[in-house]
């Protein structure tokens, strides 16, 4: 008993210094004003129209990103389940970009999407006209999907690949069409992976500020960008903390709702 506890020691210390203390600090700053006296103004500042708009846009873009990732990852999982070939290699190819820092990857997209960038070069040479999506929400969603897709694919693939094929055959045997097999057997049994995937995509997409900054110029303000501005660029760390707390509550509520779907409780949701 004692031994096991002491083995967890470094982890506990890490959690304490890396999560709990900063969290308490943020909570403290969120609840006080510049002079250190108690106030709810920081929390209430979410009602500021600019902040509300940023929060709304964050929710919207994160939602779109999550849906697109899901629509890409689920059929891919089905395909990989069916294919007899080297699944590991396909997954390896999908994971490969993750070995490079995501800021670099996102900057690469910015360069590709520029007015005289690579993509437009090809499009014009094909006579297809120019694509002008840089600094729009579309570019941000593209970046979000590109960066977070592997986090959707991996948990779904991991769960799906473990579904015993005899269950699929049993459903066929009982008269199910291929569509029904997916709907009645594969989809419900993949739910833990889908829930994990949604969590692991939605949360970082919701809180990002780097992707929106790089691909959105200064025109796309997500809640993450606002918080960053408050903390680092001459704003008030008390307001930044207040907004952070509000966003955290939003995320916790989303996760709680999501968890309700995960009846089996097998998912690796936070």
């Amino acid at each position, binding site marked *: 008993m004692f031994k096991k506890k002491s083995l967890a020691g470094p982890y506990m210390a890490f959690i304490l210094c890396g999560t709990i203390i900063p969290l308490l600090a943020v909570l403290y700053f969120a609840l006080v004003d510049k002079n250190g006296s108690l106030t709810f103004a920081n929390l209430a500042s979410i009602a500021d129209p600019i902040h509300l708009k940023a929060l709304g846009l964050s929710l919207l873009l994160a939602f779109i990103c999550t849906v697109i990732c899901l629509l890409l990852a689920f059929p891919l999982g089905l395909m990989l389940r069916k294919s007899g070939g080297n699944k590991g290699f396909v997954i390896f190819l999908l994971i490969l970009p993750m070995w490079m820092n995501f800021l670099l990857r996102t900057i690469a997209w910015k360069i590709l999407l520029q007015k005289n960038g690579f993509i437009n070069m090809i499009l014009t040479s094909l006579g297809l006209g120019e694509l002008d999506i840089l600094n729009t929400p579309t570019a941000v969603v593209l970046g979000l999907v590109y960066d977070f897709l592997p986090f959707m694919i991996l948990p779904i693939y991991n769960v799906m690949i473990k579904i*015993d094929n*005899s*269950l699929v*055959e*049993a*459903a*066929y*045997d*009982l*008269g*199910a*069409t291929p569509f*029904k097999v997916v709907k*009645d*057997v594969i989809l*419900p*049994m993949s739910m833990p992976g889908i829930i994990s995937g949604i969590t692991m995509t939605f949360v970082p997409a919701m809180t990002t500020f780097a992707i929106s900054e790089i691909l959105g110029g200064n025109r796309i303000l997500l809640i993450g960008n606002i918080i960053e501005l408050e903390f680092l660029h001459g704003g008030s760390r008390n307001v930044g903390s207040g907004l952070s707390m509000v966003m955290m509550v939003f995320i916790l509520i989303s996760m709680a709702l999501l968890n309700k779907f995960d*009846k*089996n409780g097998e998912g690796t949701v936070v």
Partner: protein
Amino acid sequence: MANILELKKVSKSFDNELVLDELDLEIRENTFLTLLGPSGCGKTTTLRIIGGFIKPDTGVVLFEGNDITDLPPNKRQLNTVFQKYALFPHMNVSENIAYGLKISGKSKQYIQDKINYALKLVNMDDYGKRDVAQLSGGQQQRIAIARAIVNEPKVLLLDEPLGALDLKLRQDMQYELIRLKNELGITFIYVTHDQEEALTMSDTIVVMNQGYIQQMGTPENIYNEPENAFVATFIGDSNIIDGVMVRDRLVKICDVNFPCIDEGFGQNKPVDVVIRPEDVVLDEPGRGQMDGVVTHLIFQGVHYEMEVMAGGFEWLVQDTVMQPVGKEVSLRVDPENIQIMNKPASEDEEAIVVDV
């Protein structure tokens, strides 16, 4: 009675390895047919071809005379009980049983009646609301059977359904399956590598080895009149002895002439002779057809098993009377208990060895 299923010249290879070679099989309506053979002989492959999960490379599958070779499993009027039960873990017992009926669009009332009927049939009346994960292996197997039969298939396919159960439960389930088969009045196609199970349950046994059908017949027929050395050794214990058919009704074994009842093998033709150990009768020396001496003795519960060295051959003998090791005895075999088989015609056939 008509044939409900027919396989015609069905061949199947995996990775260039021939698993089934031009298999022909006719299955009569309302029989309990067992595919019996050692592991890897192609039983599961045959069953999966019938179920529609594998397409044969060549050959056709007929169901009530209609070609169903290209029909997917969901369009076939048969259901499978899988070896590992394959119950849906996200559905409870009733939902599992109801699945096939829901798909075919049956009414709620009809489905509920069927669930109750099926649960009763497999002796699990009160288990409808249970999670499948809470059930023991034997219970899961019953539910898997219930889930299949509520759809009223004309043929039920069972792939070693009792393989994972312990001996006692397996024997109970054997009798239950026979009872089910009789109550439902449908065709069972049953796969096993257990010869006792096959002998107990089947109307018809198909003995397979290396993708070929070795013999097809009733259990008595297969046991008493094996057509070749493989069947003789695979089904129960046997003495398989080189012999020469002197003429009709007389075979020479170990230089002694034994009267038998087989005819039509020609004269002075080398043959394989099969004699079941329980058919060898021991007596005082000089009284039987050959003299010998007991070399081994084991008590096996119902009988003693002995080995007797006689005429240069070690005879396996089963008898309720014990003869001690070293005792001189004579042995005798009644003509109707001597089974004559042609020697394998080719090297290929010879390669059909026992590996159990």
